[in-house]
């Protein structure tokens, strides 16, 4: 079909898809090691009055005062609890230690909602018996895996894994999307690397390139923009030193190329430093499809980058509302996408709800011995 979409019947293509796979990125929240916990009052009651007690709590503190406890079992048998919880309760209720009396534990309320004295008083008035309260910590948010649910159940209180993920995109959403993009990802990475090579060979930029892909739901993607880095163009070359034209990073250029073709865009009437016109041979391949002229920014497009974009480009990708981001080379010192990784900045900008826009993200890992990977050399402190 094209030089960009190499199929078996088109061997003339200069771009060779890179064999590899996609590894979903971690979010900032998933990377944080600490478990956020909530202090709650718990007690134990006879099974006959268990649901009545909970009813009382529901009246006293409707909707648990706004705390979502859905990931915690409300009731728990003593044998399913960490020993410390049971022991503490037993020490408080020792005055009536009647050996084998069967009880069931339950979570009453967050300690921040009501002091234990007031809570005990309310319950005792209805249950007509002493209600010893124990304060414990429970995980504030839902576990993100079955294994985590088990670990937390052993340490805090029985937890339920509901296949939801408050710390990042839903795992099933990621899996479905990955199925959609993985097959073609090597081809788009190949295009991005070719743009990088052309930029480096011509000396107009660093060896960084991107390829932007548009995909109608579930369908094959098609390339709508290719851009290489052009930071040294107009600068007098890399020998001049300095950062070069920072606005000419590959991702910034690709965004400009896409939005230039929006029907309502008014081009600048004065000269600018923005390198949003096609310059490298690959960028004006007739086989790049024109982007939707009625689109909005780069809404839901996919961007494949040879390198992890710098902080500026990462935020530009967020501002432009890309739907998916894939990159190969991590840039620990300067990259804005990754949340994890020793020595990285930790910004995790691909999925931060506070930035008003989240996307899906993957690291592309090419097959074979990493030592033999033929990547174009860039400085590890480069802002890609």
């Amino acid at each position, binding site marked *: 079909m094209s030089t960009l979409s190499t199929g078996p019947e088109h061997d003339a293509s200069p771009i060779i898809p890179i064999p590899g796979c996609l590894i979903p990125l971690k979010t900032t929240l998933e990377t944080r090691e600490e478990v956020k916990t909530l202090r709650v009052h718990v007690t134990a009651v006879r099974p006959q009055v268990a649901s009545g007690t909970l009813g009382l709590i529901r009246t006293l503190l409707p909707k648990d005062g706004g705390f979502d406890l859905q990931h915690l079992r409300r009731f728990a048998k003593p044998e399913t609890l960490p020993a410390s919880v049971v022991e503490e309760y037993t020490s408080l209720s020792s005055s009536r230690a009647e050996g084998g009396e069967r009880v069931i534990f339950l979570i009453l309320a967050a300690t921040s909602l009501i002091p234990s004295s007031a809570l005990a008083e309310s319950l005792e008035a209805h249950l007509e018996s002493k209600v010893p309260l124990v304060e414990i910590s429970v995980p504030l948010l839902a576990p993100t895996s079955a294994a985590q649910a088990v670990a937390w159940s052993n340490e805090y209180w029985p937890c339920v894994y509901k296949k939801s993920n408050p710390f990042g995109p839903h795992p099933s959403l990621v899996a479905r999307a990955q199925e959609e993009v993985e097959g073609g990802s090597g081809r788009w990475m190949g295009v991005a690397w070719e743009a990088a090579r052309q930029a480096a060979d011509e000396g107009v930029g660093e060896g960084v390139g991107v390829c932007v892909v548009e995909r109608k739901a579930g369908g094959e993607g098609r390339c709508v923009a290719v851009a290489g880095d052009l930071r040294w163009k107009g600068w*007098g070359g890399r020998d001049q030193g300095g950062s070069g034209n*920072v*606005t000419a990073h590959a991702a910034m250029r690709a965004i400009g190329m896409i939005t230039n073709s929006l029907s309502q*865009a008014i081009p600048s009437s004065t000269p600018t430093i923005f390198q949003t016109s096609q310059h490298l041979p690959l960028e004006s391949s007739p086989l790049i499809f024109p982007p939707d002229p009625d689109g909005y920014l780069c809404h839901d497009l996919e961007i494949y980058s040879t390198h992890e974009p*710098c902080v500026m480009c990462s935020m530009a990708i967020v501002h432009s*509302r890309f739907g998916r981001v894939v990159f190969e080379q991590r840039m620990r010192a300067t990259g804005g996408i990754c949340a994890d990784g020793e020595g990285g900045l930790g*910004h995790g900008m691909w999925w931060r709800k506070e930035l008003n826009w989240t996307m899906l993200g993957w690291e592309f890992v090419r097959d074979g011995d990493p030592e033999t990977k033929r990547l174009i050399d860039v400085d590890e402190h480069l802002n890609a």
Partner: protein
Amino acid sequence: MSSRNMSSDEHALHATYMNEALAMASHALSTSETPVGCILVHPLHSILARGLNATNRTRNGTMHAEFIAISSLLTSSLPGSLKTQTWKARADMLRECTLYVTVEPCIMCASLLRQFGIRRVFYGASNEKFGGTGGVLDVHRGNGKMLSALGTSSGRDEVSEGRDGEEEKEREEGDYEVSGGWGREEAIVLLRRFYVQENGRAPEPRKKGERVLRLDVAPLGEGVSS
């Protein structure tokens, strides 16, 4: 950098420059752009460039005022000996320049300024949603690197100690000084006027109550993509 240690002359000078940036923001408002404006000021050459948000005109969400101002610095005709200077030489002047911008630079622009090596930034309103110089990240200090697992970025609570000529211990290449709150009320009023204006244009008019122009200033900025 703190306004407490400033002479009143110095204070007045910054306020004057911020008014120039506000004039740019005002101009943006009159052309249906998000009202954010900025100027680049050089200690010898005074105002070298101006910028205002152009995201609506260009349909490009990255065309923030800071990009426009830097582009202008590198490409527009400058006075006297500066006229013939290359992009590189003009960009080098940013190391001496102060940016006055009506709203805290967003993360993208904070990084742009860092990479181009801006000397310092004075801003008006805080940018709680996208701010890159304190709002969300501290890109101006150590590229905002996360220091702890709790997500606090570097230096939020530390006071900038650089003004006595004493080297900041952990100052990194590219770090720049930032001071906020200059002309903040005016900046926020412009933003509010913009939202009222744009809502008035929306095909489905919002409820009347939401369109009332509030000129009082809330404790926090509106969080625009500046």
